[in-house]
């Protein structure tokens, strides 16, 4: 037989690599597994259970050392008159669901996408999807380009415009330090009504499905975040369709998919640059020859 033993083993060794790159394209290889392997944490926010007490806002401020007020002042419901957005000093806000007449509220914060557009857009790698599920920010790496703010489909990252010398991008960190200690995020711990459930993503999707099945009259049959933007670590259940109302209508493709496919495609195996330079070299060479003539 012409193939030697060594060649055969080489082929065998490359087989799994080849098939794995076949099964998943570039970026999802890294994060897609995070979602299913069980180590990625998620939170299921059930807006039908949210009572609008805003204690999660207090707990978030308290944990992140943000400017905070007395806990009793958070009972003020006048803030529900307007739809608020997370800011540099508020990583999470509770809003009234505007399309409903009765006072039904929903908590907004960073969704911790499985394929975060902010992390893809960040040119210095200051934003990173951690294995635990959190999308974290490293202020030491950040150069303040604010591409992440443009990239985020949920308009979450906020910029410290008032801090002239050392401005930072601010957003919910999923309490990554608490997560690493085996604790729940501060907001989840605080919620009196347990409107938020903390667990692994696969478990929570099962919980959400069983809730929708048991109370079909109570829920709109959709888990926001299961597939939106390629999936998010924060999942939402609600009595209304959140797509296009409280949250944007997004396709199931990860936001960075298009840009990353183009960019990674161009440099794949270094073939296109080599081809380009070979072409240029050939062109130059042929021109050189003509000049000589």
């Amino acid at each position, binding site marked *: 037989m012409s193939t030697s033993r060594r060649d055969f083993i080489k082929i065998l060794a490359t087989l799994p690599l080849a*098939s794995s790159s076949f099964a998943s394209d570039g970026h999802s290889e890294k994060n897609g597994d995070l979602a299913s392997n069980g180590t990625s944490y998620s939170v299921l926010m059930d807006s039908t259970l949210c009572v609008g007490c805003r*204690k999660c806002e207090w707990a978030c401020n308290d944990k992140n050392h943000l400017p905070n007020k007395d806990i009793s002042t958070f*009972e003020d419901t006048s803030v529900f008159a307007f739809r608020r957005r997370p800011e540099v000093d508020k990583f999470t806000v509770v809003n009234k669901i505007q399309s409903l007449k009765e006072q039904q509220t929903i908590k907004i914060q960073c969704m911790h996408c499985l394929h975060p557009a902010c992390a893809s857009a960040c040119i210095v790698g200051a934003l990173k999807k951690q294995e635990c599920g959190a999308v974290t920010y490293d202020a030491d790496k950040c150069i303040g380009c604010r591409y992440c703010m443009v990239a985020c489909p949920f308009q979450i990252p906020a910029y410290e415009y008032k801090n002239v010398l050392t401005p930072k991008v601010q957003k919910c960190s999923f309490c990554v330090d608490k997560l690493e200690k085996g604790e729940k995020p501060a907001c989840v711990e605080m919620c009196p009504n347990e409107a938020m459930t903390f667990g692994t993503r696969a478990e929570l999707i099962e919980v959400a499905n069983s809730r929708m099945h048991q109370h079909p009259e109570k829920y709109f049959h959709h888990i926001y975040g299961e597939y939106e933007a390629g999936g998010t670590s924060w999942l939402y259940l609600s009595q209304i369709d959140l797509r296009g109302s409280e949250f944007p209508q997004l396709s199931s493709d990860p936001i960075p998919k298009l840009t990353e496919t183009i960019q990674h495609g161009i440099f794949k195996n270094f073939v296109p640059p080599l081809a380009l330079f070979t072409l240029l070299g050939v062109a130059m060479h042929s021109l050189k020859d003509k000049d000589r003539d």
Partner: protein
Amino acid sequence: MKKIIFALSFISIQAYIYAFVDNSNPTNCKECHTCDKPSTQALCLHPCPRHETTNSNKHNLSEGPGIVFFKDIAEHFTPVKFDHRAHADMSSLGVEKCNFCHHFTPPGKIQPCRDCHTKNSEDLKRPGLKGAYHRQCLGCHREWSHDNKCFSCHENTDKKTPVDPSDKSDIIANAHPKIQSPQTLVYKTPYRKAPIVTFHHGQHIKSFGLQCVNCHEKFTCGNCHDSDPNKKKKRTMQQVHQSCDKCHRADNCSKCHSLKEMAPFNHADKGWKLNYPHSKLACKECHKTPEEKPKKECKFCHKTEWTRQNFNHNSTGLKIDAAHSMFECSYCHSENNTFKVFCNKCHFDGRDPKKKPVGEYLTL
């Protein structure tokens, strides 16, 4: 050698494929379903233990505690003093009674919440103790208070000065006062042609033998208590009519709507003043359909062939004296109309039985 390499490579490829197939934790259908092939139409599920409520209503209200202190999870707020007596009394007004809160009560002593809802619940499908407490309370409290103030249950004190749970001065285990049922309710409706609707609430209860929960199906605190009636959920036109439509046919507006308040229904107006025991009957016991008009004869409803021996005349309210009790029914009563009584078979002086009864009237 080649054979060994081929065998090894075959095994490694198999192992590689196997690693991709998730065959961990095969679900056992029989754990939840009773039949072999459940479908969306026939789920055939095992009864959920959550709904085992056979026990709770066997207990008397007085067995329950007067005041309960919820102090297991006090962290940011003070413990809650819960007036169990008043709440138990309130829920006894509804259909579910104790089950309204104690949704899982297997035989034996009624279980406290913390037996199932643990502080750090591992089961994601079951709320923890904090969630269980709050969901139980806030469900009703928010309905009538329209707010989410923590201090309506938790005392507004500094964390440094803990509340003495034995101090019962500010809370008295009161029973819910007896509900006064209204007799007549007059509604002014937006129906211009005939805006007044008179609802004889008392008569409905009496004539139809109704319990509160027969009509007030979702009997919650918010039905009566509302801190701000303007914020109360307005019922839709359909919902308003639904409560009447269940019995009355919604084909004739003037049945309920009129220009002025309507008098309560009186059977005498229809030519038959009902006396005991017929006055105690619900309408449908004689009128099987609203159109049915029973004849004024005993045998129209009563299938028993009554004779002097098997009929207890006392049940009509008239105890016949000894002299008359030996006569057959037809001596005094007409064959066709039992209610017509005459004396002229024996007495020829034209006497009237109403003026001179044949016995003693009983109070029934």
